C-alpha cells in the first residue's frame, strides 16, 4: 500500500493535467484565432475606390481625401501650443477644449482632434508634424461628385452595418460599402481588395516586426474605374425637365440595350450623402413619404401602361394573322360588348384602319383586335396563353435582368390568373378586354416600357438594358448583355405599326409636338390611377405617359416617359420625350417654346390636392373628387 501512494498520485495528476491541457488546447478555441491574438495586429491598406465616368468619359464620381488631425492624449509631449495653433488656424481656447474632449474620450485611444483639413493646411502641418508627438494625420477618402444628377443610379457609400458584418466576411467594422445603384452593383470592382499587414506586437503594444516575415500579408488590389452607359448631359437635362413634377424617364439605345438616361423625379443632389452629414440627410430624404425622393420611379413604379400597350396588341394581331394593315373597324365613340361599354374619343361611326387606329389611339380598334386574337383559339384560356407568350417576349412581366440592384417585375396576366379569378372555362375574351388598351391587369415599370419601345425600334429584338459600359478600358464581357432577345413577332409586322407610331407625330395625338428634322415614332398614353390617403381610396388625375424612338429608320434612342397626374400623354410626357430625343440627337433644342412650357410647368398644385382635405377636380375639371373628411366638415359647418 505504502509503495503505491506516490505512483497513484502521479498517475492521477498526469491524467488531470493532460485533461486540463486538452481542454485549453483542443476544446476551448477562444485563444486560437490569430486575429484575436493580442500579439498580432492587422493593419489594413485600403485601395482608392474606382472612379465612375459617363458614356462620353465625363467624370461623374471621384474621390476626395480628407485629412483629419488625430491625437492620442497619453503620447502627447509638452509642445509649443502657440505655433501649433497658428499652423492649424485655431485659437488657444479651441486647442484646450478639443484636447480636453479627446482626453475625456480616452487618454489611450486615438480620437479626431481636428477634422477635414484643407490640402493647404495639411501641407503646412505635415512638415512640422513630427515635432508634435501624439498627433498624427489620418487620411480618409470619401466620394466627390462632379455632377448633381443621377443620384438614383449612382448610389452612395456608407459604413457597414451589423448585418453586412455578419453576411459579408470581407468587411471589418468601420469600413465603407456601396449602397444602392452602381456603387452597390459594382461594389467589388469599384472597391478593389484591401491589403493587410500582420504586425507582431509585444505586451507593451510596441511593434516588434512583421508577423511571420509578412507571410500572410497581402498587397491591395486597386479599385477599377467604371464607365456607365449614361449620357450625363441627357440625364441632367431630363432631371431639369422633371423639376416640380413626379415621374420617370428611361432612355435606351436600342441597338445595344445601353441605358442613356434614368431619371426619377423628385431627386436629390448626390453630394447630400457624403461624409458626416450623410446620416441626417438620408433620414430626411427617406422619411419624405409623399414625394419619395429615394424611390426610383424609373425602376420601381408599376403602372398600367395605357395606350402605348396598343402597339403590342397590333403586332400580335398581325403575327396571329387576325388582322392585316388594311383591316378596318368601326368605332361607335367606343366599343360595346354585352352590357358594357368601353368609351373612345373617336367620333361615332369613324372607320379606322390599323394606321389610323394607332395614331388616333382608337380603343374600339384594339378591342376588336384583342378579341380576334383571343377568340382565334377554341378557348379563351388558350388564346390568352398565346397572347401572354407574345407579350412576355418583349420582356414584360419579369425583372429584365439589368445591372442595378432594385426593380419590379410588373405584371402580365396569364390564363391561370383568370382561371383563378373566374373559374376554369368560365371566362371569355370580353372579361379581359381592358388588356386591349393597357388598362387591365397589365402593369409595367418605365424601364420595361422603354425596353418595349427599343424592341419595336429594333423591329423585333432587344438587348437586356444595362448601365455598365466598360470596366477600366475593357469593354464589358457580360454574356447576358450581349445576347439578342428575339420576340415572337416576325420583323415584317413591325413596319405597319411603326408607320402608325410615326403618324402619331404627323397627324395623330402628338402632331403639335413634332420635332423639326427628326422622324419620331411614338405613342401617347394616359393611365387612370388611384391613391389611398388616410385610408380613403381616391381617383387622381391620370398619369401622362409617352413612348417614342427616333430616328424611325435608324433608331438611336428609345424612350419611355411618365409624369404622375400629368393627364394627357402628349401634354407632359410627350413634350419631355420629344425634348429628350432632340437633346440627344441634335445636342441642342430648337423647340424652345416646348422647353419653356416644360421647364416652367409645375404639377405641385396637382400633387397637393389629395392632401388638402377639400373637394378637388381631376382631369382638367372633368370630375370632382370629394374627400370624406371634407364632407364631414361641411355637414358640421352646416349645422
Amino acid at each position: 500500500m505504502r509503495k503505491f501512494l506516490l505512483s497513484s498520485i502521479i498517475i492521477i495528476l498526469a491524467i488531470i493535467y493532460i485533461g486540463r491541457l486538452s481542454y485549453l488546447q483542443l476544446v476551448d478555441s477562444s485563444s486560437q484565432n490569430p486575429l484575436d491574438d493580442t500579439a498580432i495586429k492587422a493593419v489594413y491598406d485600403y485601395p482608392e475606390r474606382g472612379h465612375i465616368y459617363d458614356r462620353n468619359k465625363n467624370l461623374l464620381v471621384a474621390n476626395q481625401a480628407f485629412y483629419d488631425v488625430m491625437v492620442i492624449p497619453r503620447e502627447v509631449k509638452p509642445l509649443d501650443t502657440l505655433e501649433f495653433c497658428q499652423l492649424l488656424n485655431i485659437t488657444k481656447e479651441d486647442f484646450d477644449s478639443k484636447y480636453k474632449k479627446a482626453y475625456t474620450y480616452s487618454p489611450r485611444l486615438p480620437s479626431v482632434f481636428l477634422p477635414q483639413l484643407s490640402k493647404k493646411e495639411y501641407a503646412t502641418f505635415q512638415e512640422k508634424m513630427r515635432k508634435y508627438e501624439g498627433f498624427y494625420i489620418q487620411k480618409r477618402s470619401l466620394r466627390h461628385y462632379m455632377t448633381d444628377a443621377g443620384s438614383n443610379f449612382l448610389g452612395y457609400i456608407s459604413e457597414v452595418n451589423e448585418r453586412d458584418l455578419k453576411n459579408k466576411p470581407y468587411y471589418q467594422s468601420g469600413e465603407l460599402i456601396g449602397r444602392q445603384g452602381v456603387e452597390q452593383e459594382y461594389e467589388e470592382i469599384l472597391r478593389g481588395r484591401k491589403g493587410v499587414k500582420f504586425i507582431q506586437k509585444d505586451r507593451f503594444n510596441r511593434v516588434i516586426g512583421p508577423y511571420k516575415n509578412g507571410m500572410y500579408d497581402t498587397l491591395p488590389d486597386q479599385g477599377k474605374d467604371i464607365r456607365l452607359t449614361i449620357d450625363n448631359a441627357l440625364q441632367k437635362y431630363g432631371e431639369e425637365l422633371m423639376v416640380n413634377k413626379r415621374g420617370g424617364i428611361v432612355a435606351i439605345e436600342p441597338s445595344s440595350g445601353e441605358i442613356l438616361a434614368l431619371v426619377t423625379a423628385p431627386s436629390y443632389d448626390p453630394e447630400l450623402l457624403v461624409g458626416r452629414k450623410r446620416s441626417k440627410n438620408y433620414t430626411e430624404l427617406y422619411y419624405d413619404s409623399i414625394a419619395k425622393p429615394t424611390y426610383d420611379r424609373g425602376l420601381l413604379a408599376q403602372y398600367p401602361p395605357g395606350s402605348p400597350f396598343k402597339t403590342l396588341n397590333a403586332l400580335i394581331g398581325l403575327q396571329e394573322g387576325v388582322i392585316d394593315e388594311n383591316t378596318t373597324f368601326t368605332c361607335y365613340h367606343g366599343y360595346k360588348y354585352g352590357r358594357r361599354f368601353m368609351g373612345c374619343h373617336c367620333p361615332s361611326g369613324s372607320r379606322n384602319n390599323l394606321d389610323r387606329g394607332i395614331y388616333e389611339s382608337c380603343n374600339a380598334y384594339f378591342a376588336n383586335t384583342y378579341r380576334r386574337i383571343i377568340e382565334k383559339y377554341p378557348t379563351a384560356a388558350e388564346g390568352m396563353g398565346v397572347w401572354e407568350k407574345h407579350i412576355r417576349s418583349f420582356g414584360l412581366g419579369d425583372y429584365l435582368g439589368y445591372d442595378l440592384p432594385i426593380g419590379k417585375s410588373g405584371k402580365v396576366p396569364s390564363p391561370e390568373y383568370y382561371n383563378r379569378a373566374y373559374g376554369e372555362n368560365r371566362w371569355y375574351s370580353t372579361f379581359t378586354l381592358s388588356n386591349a388598351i393597357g388598362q387591365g391587369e397589365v402593369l409595367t415599370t418605365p424601364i420595361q416600357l422603354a425596353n418595349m419601345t427599343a424592341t419595336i425600334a429594333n423591329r423585333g429584338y432587344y438587348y437586356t438594358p444595362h448601365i455598365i459600359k466598360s470596366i477600366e478600358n475593357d469593354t464589358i464581357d457580360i454574356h447576358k448583355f450581349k445576347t439578342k432577345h428575339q420576340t415572337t413577332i416576325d420583323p415584317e409586322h413591325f413596319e405597319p405599326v411603326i408607320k402608325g407610331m410615326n403618324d402619331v407625330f404627323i397627324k395623330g395625338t402628338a402632331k403639335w409636338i413634332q420635332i423639326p428634322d427628326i422622324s419620331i415614332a411614338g405613342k401617347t398614353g394616359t393611365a387612370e390611377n388611384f391613391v389611398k390617403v388616410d385610408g380613403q381610396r381616391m381617383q387622381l388625375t391620370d398619369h401622362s405617359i409617352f413612348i417614342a424612338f427616333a430616328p424611325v429608320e435608324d433608331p438611336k434612342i428609345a424612350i419611355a416617359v411618365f409624369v404622375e397626374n400629368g393627364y394627357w400623354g402628349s401634354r407632359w410626357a410627350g413634350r419631355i420625350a420629344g425634348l429628350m430625343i432632340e437633346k440627344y440627337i441634335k445636342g441642342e433644342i430648337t423647340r424652345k417654346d416646348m422647353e419653356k412650357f416644360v421647364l416652367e410647368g409645375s404639377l405641385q398644385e396637382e400633387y397637393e390636392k389629395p392632401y388638402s382635405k377639400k373637394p378637388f377636380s381631376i382631369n382638367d375639371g372633368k370630375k370632382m373628387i370629394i374627400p370624406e373628411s371634407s364632407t364631414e366638415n361641411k355637414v358640421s359647418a352646416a349645422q
Partner: protein
Amino acid sequence: MIKKFDWLTILIYFLLVAIGWINIYSATYKGPDESIFNLNELYGKQMMFIIASVVMIVIVLSIEAKFYERFSSVIYLASLLLLLGLFVFGKNINGATSWYAIGGMTLQPSEFAKAATALALSKYLSDIQTNILEFKGLMRAVIIIALPALIIIPQPDPGSALVYASFFFVLHREGLSPWYLMIGFVAVLLFALTLMFGTIWVSLGTALLLTLIYFVSKKSKKRLSILQLTGILLVSIVFSYSVNFIFENVFEQRHRDRFSLWLRLEDDPAKLETIRRTIGYNTYQSESAIGSGGLMGKGFLEGTRTKGDFVPEQHTDYIFSTVGEEWGFIGTATVVLLFTILILRLQYLAERQKSAFSRMYGYSVAAIIFFHFAINIGMVIGLLPTIGIPLPFFSYGGSGLMGFTILLFIFIKLDANRINEW
C-alpha cells in the same frame, strides 16, 4: 559499470534538458545571426550550464557510491552553512536574497540543499537505531527536513521552502502513519471548501459525512466512537471558522485575490477583468499562450505570444507555456508523460534498492521532482495558485539545473552500485 546505469532515466533526463533548452532558446530569442553559445543571451548561458552539468555528471558518477552515504552529514551541514551565509553575503535578485554572486556568476544554494537534505534524511532514517514511529525519531527527521526550509522562508522564497514538504512522501513510505498525510489532505480540502461554500455548508457537510461513516463502519472493528467522531466534527468546524476568520481578517487583499483566482471564486466580470490584469495576469497570459497552440502548436520560434513577451518569466517558471504555444498539445502531453515516466521509473528503481539508504534517497529524488513538476505545471495551466518554483531540467537557471542533475545522478550512481551493497 556503465552497463549498470539506468539508461532509461538518463535518456529521459537528456530529453527533458534538450526540450527545455529549445524552449528557452525560443523564449529568449531575439533574432537570427546569433550563436547558440552567445553568452550575452540567456539561451547561450543555459547551453553553458548544460555543458557544465554534463561535466558534473561525470564527476558524480566517478565518485565512489559509499562517499555519498558516508559524507551525507557533512554535505548537509555545508549546505546549511551556505544557506545561512546568504544572510550575510547574499545578493538580492528580484526581491529575494537567495544568491551568492561570484565573479559574473550567481549561485543559489537552496537548489543544492535539496540533494543534501535528501542525503541526510536517508542517512538518518536508514540508521538501524532510528524509529520514526517514536516521537523522538520522527522529530529528528522533521528537524532535518525543516531546518533548510526554515532558513529559506525568510529569504524570502516560500516556494522553494514548500518543496521540503515532499519529504513526507519518504516518511510515509518508511512507515509514518497515514494519518498525517490524511489530516494534511483534509485540512487543505476543508480550507478550499470553506472558501468556496462557506463555513455553514462545510460544517453541515462534515456532520453528514461523519454520520454516514459512523453507520457504514458499524460492523468494522476499527470503527471510531461517537465521542471521537464528535471531536473530529468540532475540530473541523473550529478549523473552518478560523479559515474564514483568517481569510477575511488576517490575509491581505492580494492573498485573497490569489485564492479567488485559484478557486474561481469571483464571478463579477468587471472584477474578473481586474484580476486578469493584475494578480491573474501571469496565469491568464500563460493559459492564453498554451491555448493558442492548439493541437500541433504554432511551430518552433513561431509563438506570437512568446515573441511578444506576453508571459512574464517565460524562460524560468513559465517555460511550459512556450511548449504549449509552439508545440501544441502534442508537446505538452509529451512533456507531462516524460515527467510521469521519469517519476514512476525513479520510484521503481527506489523500490528495487537493497540498501535502505539508497531506497530512501531514491524516494526523495522521485518525491522532489514530483513536487516541482506538480506545482509548476499546475500553476502554469491555471489549476494551482501561483507558487514560483522552477520546472526541473527545463527552466532557465544554472543552479537549478546543476542541483537537479546532482540530485538525480547521485541516485543513478547508487542504483548502479546496488549489487555491491551487501
